[in-house]
């Protein structure tokens, strides 16, 4: 395998221009080929996990700015991807490492991105960009190695329709239903995990794939569950025909409203089998239960967000990646909030015991991020076994 590529002969680095829709401009150099892309520019404050982030389908349609300044140090490996290919539209970093050093590295990040035609750009003043996005809010931007005139690029950004409407979920979902059996590599088993890790044998979980991260599937497989992944527009009848013990609504990209057509299916499923929603799946479950959504100014993306678990009062450090949120206070009937974000008080989790469903806005499967909440999968298993 190609571990790294030498700098282009002739030495000239490939100048790249970043222009946001409000005219904010930065320059950098591509480390993965040429091109011009448009997307919503967002930042993530995690200090590790670039491979997981770039392959997370939830980033579809987005240009990802990493606040961690040195990226690529440990390369990419065969275990840490969250989908079959890189999903981001573009990647912005301060300093890219061409020569990864790790016992697990199989190739460099640049080679991976290049192979899939994705622009990775280094030399970006990522902190300036982050501070700008924090104050001005998430916005569209363009990244180009071709166009050198910021004014021209700015006009093209203005014409870019954005990611609110298009069917991003449709782009990333599985085309056909298929089983999933792969477990996490040995190294991932956290020490706090119960001795009898395999507690979900004989349980069948159907996962609605809105852009599911492999780690969610692995988390279920680790517990012994039989997992079937189904396309996002599978009807309730089709899903229930698989005789699942529980249904998981996965994470995914974009505005949940763009996905409203799956709400009837979710409503039909509710009450029939236990349902567990994560991230976009949480938003869709909430919408099915009567919540509306709103867009956060600059989203929650990182691995250090404190979330209060209301039942115990304890603080969980969570992995987050979302730009939209359910409106707290719109819960009705038996639906209750279970988790609250401690930085801004937004809703992070809900449950409805009567309907045997619960969901969280954050990522209990971590990847990247802290493993504090992996027990949620166990709770889901308990629920499927009628213990919870």
């Amino acid at each position, binding site marked *: 395998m190609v571990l790294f590529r030498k700098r282009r002969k002739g030495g000239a680095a490939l100048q790249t221009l970043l222009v946001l829709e409000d005219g904010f401009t930065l320059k950098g150099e591509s480390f993965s080929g040429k091109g011009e892309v448009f997307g919503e520019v967002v930042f993530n404050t995690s200090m590790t996990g670039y491979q997981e982030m770039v392959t997370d389908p939830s980033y579809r349609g987005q240009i990802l700015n990493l*606040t961690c300044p040195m990226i690529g*140090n440990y390369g990419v490996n065969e275990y840490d991807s969250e989908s079959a290919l890189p999903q981001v539209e573009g990647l912005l970093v301060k300093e890219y490492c061409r020569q990864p*050093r790790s016992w697990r590295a199989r190739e460099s990040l640049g080679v991976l991105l290049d192979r899939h035609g994705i622009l990775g750009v280094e030399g970006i003043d*990522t902190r300036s960009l982050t501070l700008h996005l924090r104050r001005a809010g998430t916005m569209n931007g363009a990244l180009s190695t071709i166009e050198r005139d910021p004014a021209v690029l700015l006009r093209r950004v203005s014409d870019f329709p954005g990611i609110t409407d298009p069917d991003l979920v449709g782009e990333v979902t599985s085309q056909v239903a298929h089983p999933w059996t792969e477990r996490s590599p040995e190294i991932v088993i956290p*020490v706090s995990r119960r001795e009898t890790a395999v507690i979900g044998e004989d349980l069948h979980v159907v996962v609605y794939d809105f852009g599911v991260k492999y780690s969610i599937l692995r988390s279920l497989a680790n517990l012994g569950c039989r997992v079937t992944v189904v396309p996002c527009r599978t009807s309730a009848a089709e899903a229930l025909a698989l005789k699942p013990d529980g249904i998981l609504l996965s994470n995914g990209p974009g505005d949940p409203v763009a996905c409203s057509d799956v709400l009837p299916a979710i409503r039909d499923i509710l009450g029939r089998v236990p349902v567990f929603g994560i991230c976009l799946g949480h938003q869709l479950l909430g919408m099915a239960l009567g919540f509306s959504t709103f867009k956060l100014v600059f989203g929650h993306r990182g691995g250090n967000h404190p979330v209060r678990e209301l039942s115990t*009062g304890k603080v969980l*450090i969570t992995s987050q990646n979302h730009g939209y949120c359910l409106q707290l206070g719109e819960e009705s009937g038996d639906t209750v909030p279970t988790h609250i974000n401690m930085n801004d008080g937004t809703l992070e989790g809900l449950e409805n015991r009567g309907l045997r469903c619960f969901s969280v806005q954050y990522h209990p499967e971590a990847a990247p991020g802290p*493993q504090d909440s992996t027990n949620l999968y166990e709770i889901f298993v308990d629920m499927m076994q009628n213990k919870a």
Partner: protein
Amino acid sequence: MPRRSDLQKIMLIGSGPIVIGQACEFDYSGTQACRALKEEGYEVVLINSNPATIMTDPAMADRTYIEPLTVETAARIIEKERPDALLPTLGGQTALNIAVELADSGQLERYGTELIGASADVIKKAENRELFKEAMSRIGLATAKSVHLRSMEEALAFADRHGYPLVIRPSFTLGGAGGGIAYNEEQLVEMVEAGLGSSPIKQVLVEEALTGWKEFELELMRDHNDNVVVICSIENIDPMGIHTGESLTVAPAQTLSDLEYQVMRSASIAAMREIGVETGGCNIQFAVEPESGRLVVVEMNPRVSRSSALASKATGFPIAKIAARLAVGYTLDELTNDITRETPASFEPAIDYCVVKIPRWDFAKFPGADQTLTTRMKSVGEVMSIGRTFKEALQKALRSLEQGYDGLMNVKDREETDSSLFSLEQLKEILPLPRAARIFTIAEALRKGLSADEVSCLTGIDGWFIDQIFHLVEFEDKLRRAGELDEELLWQAKSRGFSDSRIAFLRGTEEKVIRELRHKYSIYPVFRRVDTCAGEFEAYTPYLYSTYERGAEETAVPLNGTEENRGKVIILGGGPNRIGQGLEFDYCCVQAALTLREEGYRVIMVNCNPETVSTDYDISDCLYFEPLTLEDVLNICHEENPDGLILQFGGQTPLKLALPLLEEGIPIWGTSPQDIDRAENRREFALVVDKLDLWEPAYGIATRPQEARKIAEKLGFPILVRPSYVLGGLAMRLVYTLEELDIYLQSGPPISSANPLLIDKYLEGAVELDVDALSDGEKVVIGGVMEHVEQAGVHSGDSCCVLPPYSIGTQQLKEIHRQTEQLARELNIRGLLNIQFAVRGREVYILEANPRASRTVPFTGKATGVPLAGLAARVIAGASLSDLGFTFGMIPNYYSVKEAVFSFSRFDNADIVLGPEMRSTGEVMGIDSNLGLAMAKALLAAGTPLPVKGTIFITVADRDKPQAVEMARSLWRLGYNLLATRGTAAALRDAAVAVEEVKRIGEGSPHMLDYINEGKVDLIINTPAGSGAFSDGKCMRQQAVQRGVSLITTMQGAMAALDGMRALQQSGMDVQCLQEYYSC
């Protein structure tokens, strides 16, 4: 749950004197705790023997006991104060050990004092390796194979089973004292023997060496609601086998994937829960096998540590302050993040920069000491730097060290040879040896064409770090070869962290030329905030670092402040701790900053030492964590445009910048740089002394060896010799004969007209005095006069001193006052002035004058109750002494004794003799209305307890015999048994003093070392006869240090100890707090 209301009074234990392995990071943590607990409304009782600390400033705690840090003293204070709780987790290993003993002996229970922060059981479980290993295996975590043992046989048996190398660690010692790595049986035997001796519980651990594995540390916090957060990950650049305090480190970890990091994080949380640390901070170290990723837990500290100070500075998360609040009942989510103000403290900091720490070693101070880095700490300080990339941070750290490095230079190493002269083959041989300057050797090897892989293989350092160094070396070559240094290339160099002076060197020009070029192109750094959240939230605390980026720091909170104030002033700190310049100067900087803020000035602090209080963002209005070089300071001045810059609190570091800063038009407050130079420059100063018609010892300046001999003969022996620019008396010697002078001239630093040698007539039999004075340009007030116990010739930083003087007549004191006033006026002093005098009979000589805060300012301040540094700061800012109501010095009616503390036990082969070169690392203070008791307290605090009864071994040089006989007679009358070697014994018998004669080492067993090893000696009085490197005396002194037997090496010191022993026999020690001393 909010703060506990059932507690009113809380006692804190400090960490005592600065020694290698336990430095001022515990002043930082203790000071934070004091302030936090007081803010919460608790009454704070503090015990610490170290007068240089900020925590012992009487304004910090309510009841400040500067008393010896022993279990007995602590118990006595508890008996007197009856605190509701004792918080032991912020004073390092010393505090923890005392707390465990207090708990075990039932003292805490007796007085109803609760141990908060960590229970005795938890401490034992974390620190006892067997219990720790059991706990780790319960949660499925691997540890290195090891055995705890109390005998040599067990050690050899373990070695037979597991082979070498093996790590030896004595239990319960500071910074791994007495430990090491044994590669063969001989080394094993030696280390186990030493380890059994130095462990307070006579136990050592022998363990398979994980040498060469990658090493990581995590800093955690937990509250009583079981919320756990990881504050910071730290990666050691040097692999396992080198103490973490000796390693270059980087934060956050750079070579771990998310999965590897998260597994480590989860493991650390599980470990903290299993050990049961209920509230506060803890530190866990891991080793990772580079080829397989196998993870092993190395150790855990259930308290704040050096690494937590580093983690606090690296992230902006104040671990000690939060730990103190958690200990009194708060949970993490009830506390807010100071920096963002809106988000809770229950989160994990995100870093968008890179932090590099480099230790600072002072091996030049310990001739003969082994310079190989091992599991035992030998560094005396450290620097931290912040950059956007590792390359930038590394280069900033190198120049922060103040050891003359402005980048990855070719440096002279131990062999006194330029490493650029080494062949590739030689470099390959040197690289595997972990030594202080290895990073420069690595750079040189890469320059010579060794591949990064080979260097990584030879050093055990992860290839990622070697690649980074390689990129810098490669870029240096580009800089050197480029036809023109154009704007783009200069920009690229600056963004990689290259200093102006390094660029100048590579381009063959002057630093000033590069600076001007930078100004021409408008290449200035931007200042970025350390905000705990990588920009996600608004930061309200201006804690800044420089970097070269094109974008501005967009923020709603301006960097430079907007509020109306009396002016903006920059205080330059003292940089890394080293022998001769340490915590004392940080004390002065902090007091000055706090005072000027109270006065309405906007105070900006600049420093690069992560262990200090001054680099706590709470202390100043704005903190720049930056190197203290001309370039970096000028950049800050360019950014801030201050009304004034204060140099005189940070020791020599800022003083060196005085003239260059003045040349650049920076307004310097306080004594002018020209006057500073008049005091510092020997020839200029002689003119001042002449003009005032004062006396100084006869001296000469030699530029050639022959000249030195001539001057020596003219002055007559003994003489003091030293290079002209010295710090802490580096390379200073007392020379008795022409032969000794020749040896010095051959082995000491080379003499030239650029580096002349100063030769002073040594005043035999003179008493040395230190004066700290304050002047506003008109009036001069003496803050304190200290009398040295040892004769002039022992470096003032190493000598024991007493305030007020005890043997000097009023006439001479008046003369000293008069001369101090004269000098202060002549030198136009505005601020502090320290003068050293020597008094012989009625003659008063001036030895030197330092126009700045001296090492003794904190001691003087505490001995008199006058905040000298704070007053000086106000004077420097323009107040007059009459305005401040400080018109005459305070002479206390009790005695304060300052004693120096050494870290000799760290250096196997260094001799323990006091001389003109400073070698102490720290100091302690003893206070009592009785001079003898004050002396006994100071000696006890310094680890030299005086026996009330028992056996004293006396062996002195011939010149000291008459005095020794009188002293021995007094000791004998006080009931002590005396031992002596032949010569001394004969002298004592002649004087009819009962003595047992002991054989010298060469005279067969049992000889003097056997007596010491068998614990038959309670105190040793030994004055060295000469400079014989392998004399009996040296062996004995080393043995005493290793065995922890009290040792006194000067006759004057012995006489003072005699007073102490007499006083101890008459009345035991009592404890009293500073506040009580001041009020009576």
